């Protein structure tokens, strides 16, 4: 419930349709793309000007009401899950592409602009916005910045943090701040990097300047089949050792190719234990030279079949299966749970073997898709939430995969964020001192902890609770903390 005074103030500030409090109106906001975690907010506000955002934050700050900023709600870690006593601040009405400067190769956009809409608007100038999360038709740029979203082209073109120049935001006390600028750097600390991926904990974004990239003249993709996951993994290393940074470098295991093939008919080789998709882009000369080398390296690495796309239609067909992996998992199984860890590539065979063993142990099927170029793993655990205990088993299985990611030198989240989902993993990945500094950074921006509370950075008490349940490699995490 919202305090009556806050409700009255919001009602005075916003048009009637921009303030939702009835449960049937707020229910659509109860979760994001991670539907395992739900909460109904006290209210949803849909401002359409920065002044309204300032006013909303000021009055929530004064009344100590939590605020959860929200874009399209496509996030996969529960980062946009509402707070029961808080306000969801939807940026859905901030949909304007403010300016495109083709000569400077930048676009100024409001946070509610869809990722793909930026590329569509820039296409006339031969430019595009490079980061392409698989939800790019729906997800918004504000959410991309909040999560530091990735995509299939990150190895060559970078994550969101590499493609954003300037972020304009409002802090919880209603101050307007700008991080970065139109230049390639800014004075002082790199607060632009800090705000990127901060999951709505530091400020509410109202405008973004993104870098645009020249559209490659040509792109071609090679599809290669491998008899074992190990040989496919080794081929990835071999491509990179050859000095090639492909535009995209993806792996799918047999469970994944079989799952997608029934829906997209990409003609994937279904008898292969794993396939690789290797994309070369650039000038026609570059693509020809790179593709020749890629073919040679893949063949030398034991590929049983190599197909190179003849034209754009076939290139898109080869990619269609990869892009459809998540929906396909949703169609062959009542539910699926997407894990998002990053590992050093050399650890891939070990991690995949272990996942296979656990899959048998838990009796849960797994399809693996993998941003192989940058080591970002997405095992999709297939389960049925209606079967008693299966959701819990799935979460336990996921936690073990993430712990293994840490153990081999990786991280519990490559691109989906911590949200509410990875708080436990975050406790396992960081020590007490690091978490204290994170909490200190949060406090420097938001002393009362009102912006997206309970997300991204666990409290030490939370870690202690987890630690009590979880003994990692025989060591108790955070041993210096008092136990309950």
């Amino acid at each position, binding site marked *: 419930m919202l305090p009556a005074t806050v409700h009255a103030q919001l009602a005075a500030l916003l048009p009637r349709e921009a303030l939702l409090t009835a449960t049937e109106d707020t229910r659509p906001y109860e979760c994001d793309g991670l539907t395992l975690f739900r909460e109904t907010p006290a209210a949803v506000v849909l401002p359409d000007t920065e002044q309204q955002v300032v006013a909303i934050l000021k009055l929530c700050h004064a009344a100590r009401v939590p605020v959860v900023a929200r874009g399209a709600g496509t996030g996969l870690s529960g980062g946009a899950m509402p707070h029961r006593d808080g306000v969801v601040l939807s940026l859905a009405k901030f949909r304007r592409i403010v300016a495109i*400067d083709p000569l400077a*190769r930048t676009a100024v956009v409001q946070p509610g602009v869809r990722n793909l809409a930026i590329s569509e608007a820039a296409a006339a100038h031969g430019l595009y916005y490079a980061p392409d999360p698989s939800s790019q038709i729906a997800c918004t740029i504000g959410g991309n910045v909040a999560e530091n979203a990735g995509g299939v082209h990150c190895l060559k073109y970078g994550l969101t943090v590499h493609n954003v120049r300037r972020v304009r935001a409002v802090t919880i006390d209603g101050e307007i701040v700008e991080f970065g600028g139109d230049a390639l750097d800014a004075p002082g600390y790199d607060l632009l990097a800090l705000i990127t991926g901060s999951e709505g904990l530091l400020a509410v974004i109202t405008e973004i300047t993104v870098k645009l990239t020249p559209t490659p003249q040509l792109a071609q993709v090679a599809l290669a089949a491998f008899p074992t996951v190990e040989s496919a993994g080794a081929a990835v290393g071999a491509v990179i050792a050859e000095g090639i940074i492909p535009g995209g470098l993806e792996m799918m295991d047999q469970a994944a190719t079989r799952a997608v093939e029934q829906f997209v008919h990409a003609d994937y080789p279904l008898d292969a234990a794993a396939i690789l998709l290797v994309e070369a882009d650039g000038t026609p000369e*570059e693509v020809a030279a790179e593709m020749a080398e890629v073919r040679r390296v893949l063949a030398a690495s034991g590929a049983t079949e190599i197909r190179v796309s003849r034209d754009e239609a076939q290139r898109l067909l080869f990619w269609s299966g990869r892009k459809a992996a998540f929906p396909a998992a949703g169609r062959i199984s009542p539910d699926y749970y997407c894990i998002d860890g990053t590992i050093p590539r050399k650890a891939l065979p070990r991690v995949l073997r272990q996942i296979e063993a656990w899959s048998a142990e838990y009796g849960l099927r797994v399809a693996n898709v993998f941003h192989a170029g940058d080591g970002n793993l997405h095992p999709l655990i297939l389960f049925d939430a209606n079967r008693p205990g299966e959701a819990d088993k799935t979460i336990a299985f996921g936690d073990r995969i993430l712990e293994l990611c840490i153990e081999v030198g*990786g991280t519990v989240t490559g691109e989906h964020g911590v949200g509410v989902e990875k708080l436990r993993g975050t406790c396992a990945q960081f020590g007490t001192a690091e978490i204290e500094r994170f909490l200190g950074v949060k406090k420097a921006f938001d002393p009362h902890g009102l912006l997206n509370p309970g997300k991204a950075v666990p409290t030490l008490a939370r870690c202690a609770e987890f630690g009590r349940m979880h003994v990692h490699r025989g060591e108790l995490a955070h041993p210096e903390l008092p136990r309950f």
Partner: protein
Amino acid sequence: MHEAVIQGWQARVREAAAAKTPLAIRGGGTKAFYGEAEQGEPFDTRAYAGIVDYEPTELVVTARAGTLLADVERTLREAGQMLAFEPPHFAPGGTLGGTIATGLSGPRRPYAGAVRDHVLGVKVVDGRGELLTFGGRVMKNVAGFDVARLMTGALGTLGIVAEASLKCVPQPRAQATRVFELSADEGIRRANEWGGKPLPLSATCQCDGRLYVRLSGAAPAVEAAAAKFGGAEVPDGEALWTAVRDHAHPFFAAARDGAPLWRLSVRSTAPHTDLGAEQLIEWGGALRWLVAPRAEASKLRAWAAAHGGHATLFAARDRSPGVFHPLPPALAGLHARLKAEFDPHGILNPGRMAAGGA
């Protein structure tokens, strides 16, 4: 042995914190001229040196802060890789720690990214003497706030960089440098137009009525782009880019003799304006160097701000107008609070950034 060095660092920081004695953190001292003047007892990082881990197929190198930048680069070169941000050396003896702390990038920056774009993780000793690890050794990692990048370019005011993991990239197979006789206005326009084309551009430099352009990539692509661009070939292109990177180019002669050197980082399309002195323009128009008296500070800062950027008094005997562009009050407040969080006793390079008390 290495562990003992870090423990020594931690003990020293704790003592300094207890006594409130400032520490002036230093590697090779090759970039000591940059930033506000050092204050406090010298704290030399060079004993903590060596490459910890480097596997070319992982595209990641991890090294201790005291490792010579030249050693890191040589190791990478032998494996056919490099640091994409082309860090300036200015003089021999610079360390990896100093490269991270100053956050300075060279000619390739607009096309390949800056130091911060390649920092994957750091270990730092903060102002409480705690050894902290942020980020990691993998390409994609969004767990926790991005403190590794926050430390990059913070001039040691938030923590003493002890170790860093950096993304490496393959060396280009071929490079070529072309030169064009063009006015500064024309040069800026061309550099921006070419930057918007899918061409293997990797550096630009406008100086003395000429625009120099470097192309890097697969040999056929570089040849095709060179043919498309026209202009004349510069035979020893790499020497030019190294000279620009390290300020050994004749343009910087007066600055080397102590004249105030200004670094104007602006929107790449900002017009060429007569600011009272010749300019050397890099980064496709986004970086402009000039030698100008300190008294010009407010004029230069106003011009840079009007063009979306900021002006730094990059090197000068007398840094009295303030090295860095002043921050708006809200940002200055955030800087002061972040400084207080990582260095509550104000002992790490105090005043070196002179921003919000940092």
